[in-house]
């Protein structure tokens, strides 16, 4: 096999995994703290992508993308805050199934809202001039944008780690994930902890959507295909485990792009196959779940 083709696919896979990680890290974080898989996560990702399109078109030029990268996730965070404070927080006492269904209902609503606001056509965003074109790394050709992703991914991981381990709120969120009653007994308003965790998780979904915008077509339905992948990744990583989300994303991203080299038509089957194998061998995920 051609080594340079292998290594460039490998790097592409790694960079795709970074986007997946940003999204799945957020999903895992919310799952860990609230114990609910947020189906609307995919819709928020989609909103992030569409919003990036709009902001970068509005502002125009190269700066457009950079500013969109900042604004779009904030918009997504705002949407999630409204949904959370308005409706979601009233359901925290209910069984998890109801919460899950609520997130599904929200995903339906957001999906149609996107259709209403942006219409049903394909959109696309071009990468900023700084990141256009490719580089040569160790003989492999890699688009500059992917290199950018390879840098952003670890930065997000470090930021998340710092947040959950070094900031007060982060540590409280981790505690709430393990024992929410105890946290409440300590006099901390658990509802606000949930709100913050939820908004941060959704913010990351927005970031993921913004990051993916220049690399893929922005279409209705990207929410549904993303959320199933995100779920599977979070499951094989270990529920609620952020590092697990990283491992899962790496497995998913790399198997898919290496799959392109082996059997291009069925490249997408490889990551699903990998997920099945992992779950058959380790049904609870590779790393320890937070619960």
């Amino acid at each position: 096999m051609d080594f340079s083709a292998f290594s460039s696919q490998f790097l592409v896979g790694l960079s795709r995994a970074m986007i997946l990680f940003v999204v799945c890290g957020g999903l895992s974080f919310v799952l860990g703290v609230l114990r609910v898989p947020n189906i609307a996560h995919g819709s928020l990702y989609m909103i992030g992508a569409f919003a990036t399109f709009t902001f970068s078109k509005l502002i125009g030029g190269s700066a457009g993308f950079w500013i969109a990268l900042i604004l779009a996730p904030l918009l997504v965070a705002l949407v999630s805050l409204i949904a959370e404070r308005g409706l979601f927080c009233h359901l925290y006492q209910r069984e998890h199934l109801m919460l899950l269904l609520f997130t599904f209902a929200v995903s339906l609503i957001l999906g149609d809202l996107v259709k209403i606001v942006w219409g049903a056509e394909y959109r696309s965003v071009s990468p900023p001039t700084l990141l256009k074109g490719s580089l040569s790394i160790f003989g492999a050709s890699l688009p500059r944008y992917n290199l950018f992703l390879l840098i952003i991914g670890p930065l997000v991981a470090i930021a998340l780690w710092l947040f959950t381990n070094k900031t007060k709120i982060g540590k409280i969120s981790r505690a709430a994930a393990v024992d929410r009653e105890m946290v409440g007994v300590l006099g901390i308003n658990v509802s606000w902890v949930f709100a913050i965790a939820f908004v941060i998780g959704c913010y990351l979904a927005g970031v993921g959507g913004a990051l993916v915008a220049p690399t893929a077509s922005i279409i209705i339905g990207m929410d549904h295909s993303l959320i199933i992948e995100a779920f599977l990744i979070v499951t094989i990583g270990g529920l609620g485990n952020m590092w697990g989300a990283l491992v899962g994303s790496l497995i998913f991203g790399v198997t898919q792009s290496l799959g392109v080299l082996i059997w291009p038509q069925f490249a997408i089957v490889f990551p699903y196959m990998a997920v099945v194998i992992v779950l058959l061998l380790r049904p609870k995920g590779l790393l320890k779940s937070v619960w």
Partner: protein
Amino acid sequence: MRDKEERELYREIIRSKWFGFSVGIVFLLLILPLFLPRFYVYILALIYVTSLLAMSLNLVVGHGGMFQFHHGVFYGVGAYTVALMLKKTSLPMWMGFIAGPIAAAIVGLIIGWFCVRLTRLYFGMLQISLGSLIWVIVFRWYSFTGGDDGLPGILMPPLLSPLNHSYYFILIILLICLIIMYLILKSPFGSTLQAVRDNPQRCEAIGVNVRRHQLMAVVIATFFAGVAGVLFVVLERSAFTELLFWVLSLEIFIMCLLGGWFTFAGPIIGAAIMVALRTFVGIFTEYWTLILGIVLILLIFFLPEGVVGFFQEIFKPRSKEATEGGNQ
């Protein structure tokens, strides 16, 4: 002795108030095509197919307590099996009709065998992953399964070509399946299944091989899902990858919840509501998923027991009903 027990049961059924009601409804459904416009006949038939699917899911979820998160896969397998057989081979139609549920049950056996070794949530997640693998293969295998386009334009034999004939065929199969499901739920198997739902550990302690029991339930449920898949093809003359996608599986789950999953006929009500909603809202606006989302949220906040559960609560003050908790 056996005949006597059966006769007792039949006598009880006939005397029960639901029997008269059900017979009346069935009679009504049988004569409806005679004076309803085509569109409504089609919608009713679609409700029947969806009801069968929802009922099959409820066998394992409501009555069995299992986290069957990707039931749609078996529906899709049934549909694709019959569609592929009718389209790609010249085997007689009835073979396809039989092969569908059998294929679904075989897939159910394989997936179920892996899943029953796990508990609850992990059962569900493994099923989602296995089901999604099947979906993605069918989705990509354009040359064989038609991929994203699905398999449209399947020819039905002349006997089933007119819509009304399909309607009757679907209705009759539905009724037969419902009767079988009712018998199964009232049998020792069904009784033990409900006990497994309520307390699997206790069942092990009274000598029930819980895994084997759950696997049997899964195979039965997936068989019926396969039947529903065949009926779908009879009605729609096509098969689509949407049948295998997780969204549909979640929707069936919601139908059971909506209708009330500890009752026998709850899923039928749930299916009817969902299909009716989708159709009639869809006439006014293309954004019916938005409406569905809002309706769901209203339900979550105001009707947590499901529609049937809600009505059961209202009509509760009948002491016998209250003591025979949960099954009509």
